[in-house]
């Protein structure tokens, strides 16, 4: 029983308990608190999974930003006692039942899959697709330090795939036989292929990164419009 395992169980428990409290509680302030607990614990789980940057972001954006937003919402709308808006027990029981069935379906389906290990999905794909991540997932041994790989991945420089391998040698043999990498796999027959390149580019995330900025701008304009009071035309 390593410390890692203990931490996992502890935060797994906290995550689930928080989530259940969010669902079960009738008091919106308690819900908010439980949500902080859940999201925070999830951030720790992220860290345990070796995603330190995402974990940190989770803490910053989610717990620090989104939740504060929600708490503001709670405060702005809390005019009367919260008891007034409680859901009826019948609703709760019904939803609970649906939830249990749903949980059974999702959990029993998802956890039954052999995700890694012997003859697991990772092996099958890694072998069949000639994926370059021989060891399956990303960052299995070296904990943390994901910031740089993440940053590079936006430029389609993939620490988990491209940079580990001897690129030119392998690619020249592979690209023609197994067109698996997105950039080239969908070359249309009868259409002029793009200029031949030694290595196919891995998926880079520059575009969504930029596009999201436009999205945020639009969304903020919308939110601002809705939140502000209508200015009266001065005539």
């Amino acid at each position, binding site marked *: 029983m390593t410390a890692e395992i203990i931490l996992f169980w502890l935060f797994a428990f906290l995550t689930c308990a928080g989530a259940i409290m969010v669902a079960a509680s009738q008091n919106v302030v308690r819900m908010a608190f439980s949500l902080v607990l859940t999201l925070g614990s999830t951030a720790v789980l992220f860290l345990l999974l070796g995603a330190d940057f995402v974990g940190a972001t989770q803490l910053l954006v989610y717990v620090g930003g989104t939740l504060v937003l929600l708490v503001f919402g709670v405060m702005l709308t809390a005019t009367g006692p919260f008891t007034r808006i409680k859901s009826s027990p019948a*609703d709760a029981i019904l939803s609970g039942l649906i*939830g249990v069935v*749903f949980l059974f379906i999702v959990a029993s389906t998802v956890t039954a899959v052999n995700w890694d290990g012997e003859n697991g999905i990772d092996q099958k794909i890694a072998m069949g697709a000639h994926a370059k991540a021989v060891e399956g997932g990303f960052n299995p041994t070296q904990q943390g330090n994901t910031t740089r790989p993440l940053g590079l991945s936006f430029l389609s420089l993939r620490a988990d795939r491209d940079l580990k391998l001897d690129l030119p040698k392998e690619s020249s043999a592979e690209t023609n036989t197994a067109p698996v990498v997105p950039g080239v796999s969908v070359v249309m027959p009868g259409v002029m292929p793009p200029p031949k390149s030694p290595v196919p580019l891995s998926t880079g995330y520059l575009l969504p990164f930029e596009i999201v900025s436009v999205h945020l701008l639009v969304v903020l304009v919308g939110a601002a419009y809705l939140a502000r009071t209508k200015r009266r035309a001065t005539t």
Partner: protein
Amino acid sequence: MESLGNKLSTLLAIAWLLPLFGFVVEVFAMSWPNANRKSKAAAYFAIFCIGFGFVCSSIAFYEWGEGTDWAAFKAVDHGHSEVANAAEHGEHAATGHDDHEHKAATHETPKRTVFSGTFYNLAQFGNLKLSLDYYIDSLTLAMFVMVTLIATCIHIFATGYMAEELVDDYVDHQVHTHDGGHFHRPGRFYKFFSYMSLFCFAMLGLVLAGNIFQVFIFWELVGICSYLLIGFYVERHSASTAANKAFIVNRVGDFGFIIGLMILWTSFGTFSFDDQHEVDGNVNKVTAGLFTMVRGHDGHLDRSSDGQTVLLKNEQDVNGEWHVRKESDPGRKTITYTLLIVAGLGVFGGCVGKSAQFPLQTWLPDAMEGPTPVSALVHSATMVAAGVYLAGRFYPMFVPEVLLTIAYVGCITAFVGATIAIVATDIKKVLAYSTISQLGYMMLGLGVGGWGAGLFHLVTHACFKSLMFLCSGSVIAGCHHEQEMTKMGGLLRKMPITALTMLVGVMAIAGLAIPGTSIAFSGYHSKDAILATALAYTKLNPIHFLLFLVPLLTAGITSFYMFRLWFYTFLGKPRDQHLHEHVHESPWEMTGPLLLLAVLAAGCAIGGEDGKLFKMLTFSEPVGVGQGVDGAAAHTVSLPGHAAIHASHSTAGSAALLAAFIGMSISYLVYGKGVINPADIKRQAASVHAFLANKWGFDDLYDVMFVKPAHVVAKFAAAIDKFVFDEILHTFVRMGIAVSKWDRKFDEGVIDGIVNLMGNSTYSLGISLRNVQTGKIRQYVTFIAVSVVTLFVLLFALYPKG
């Protein structure tokens, strides 16, 4: 020939498009802000459009005759010189049928002359080509002339009939407002004529159409026009309900039509009736049309050895003959026999809806809610006949099994319609049921293999039925919108022209003729043709003997109720004195068309099967019909050829005439004398019995017959006749009333019930579905979860387990 085709298509296209132009102009004039509601300009314009269309059609007809050297009319006796031919022809007409002529008619089927082509290419989706084509043969021309002529008459009539709409403030006495007053609205004179123009356009387009898909488009369009026109008095609840009913019932039929279309498309890859000529570069490409593929040049189906598959002829050799492609050829097309039956039944389903055939006939009587000119044009002469027209046009695609269905449907319809007409008292309803019955006749005629006979009756029926509807319109207008015959009576003196023209129509539909001569009303000829075919059919297929007996019986009933209508309305004493005092003859613009149509109704079929009209129609008879089909070879039923039909003519003709006379006489006895109160007949058959027995001295008759037979030998035979006749009369009346009542019950109870049930249940289902939409956001979200779970479980349950 090429230039003739162009000439014809141009002329007919003008006749076809003019009403559309009229419609557009009238609609725009109508929406003009300062339009004068009291002007008859719209009517005149509409008359001009359709009248000019008639002129164009007539010219086209003439051109066609000249172009084909009037081959249609002299095709029977070829080999003789033209003069001799004409003389002999006249002789034949005078002396009736003789064997020599029959042979000539059967062995030398005149070659069809069809002009087809494309006006405009609409689109091509994959191999599905949609275009505006034309298909012109003598049937098209006959229909064009008939439709435009009758429509012109009816338009003129309507200028008088609809004149009361020429006001800014029309008071609808049949609609009551909440405060007990009558409903006021602006007059709709313009609207009426614009709808009528649109209808003419659609109807002519339907007739001119060169592919089945185009037919479908105009089919729908006439449906819409019918909807608009039935619902013309939309404020009346009955009118809007009737309009909805008509539309919905028709859609049920169209459902079958669409299925038929889909099968045709998937199996044949074309909608076109005739072969399509395409110029691809310098090569003339010919692709086979539907008819060619199924029937080829000789009119025979090519079936595989086991009979399950029909081989389609889509390869043309150098002689222009079409052949089935070899088995190895990738272009070889086949269709399973069953699928061909289904396709035929599907298309016929559309005809059932449009032509108000059993079991979809219920909408037509209700459709009488529209103004009477509409009933005359749309719901008797043209649109409802479109189903028959399509069945005739599509004839080569029907296999004998489908034809058998058509025959039975027609037979049932004819009988049902006729029996109900006996008890109807609304003058227009009687005519409506009669229309149903007559349409059933036409279908029957087609179904038993009488292609020419069915369409012949279509044309003659259009003439006399439109006449009768217009007469009824004249009566209704004269009686200030009273339609119940029970309130009429004795109108003969008040409105003589209407009464006499109506009598012509009645005699025509009853099929009266002077025995032994060739002087006969049009209905006699056409009905005779149908019955002869039916008789020949039952001779070949004895098991289907009902297909002859029932129509024969129906012929008698037809005569009975039509004369009943006439006697009821025009003879006897006025039943409603107040009404009677105000009755007046209609103005000239209404009586004029009546006179013209009366001439047509009496004489349009002169000469019968040797007459010009029949010859013209049969000129485009599909190849192979004339020879008939031998049932033993491939099909379950046989179809009679021309020879067999001719052989049955005299028998069928005299039987039909006898039936008509019997019907007329009964009618005269019951209603003509005006001494029997028809209400009593309605009450119960027993009282009718007693009543009749007393009144006409039947007791004395018994006495005479049994006590003093020797005294009156001369009277004896007549007395026997009368006695038998009387018995039959009683039974008839009793049975007739029982059947009609049952029919009506079935009609109103079951079929209406089903239609209403469907309407109501879908409506209430719709309303109850609203309850699902609770407006509660939490329940919506719950539904997401529940749905995901349910869908997953469903997939889980139905997916193969592996």
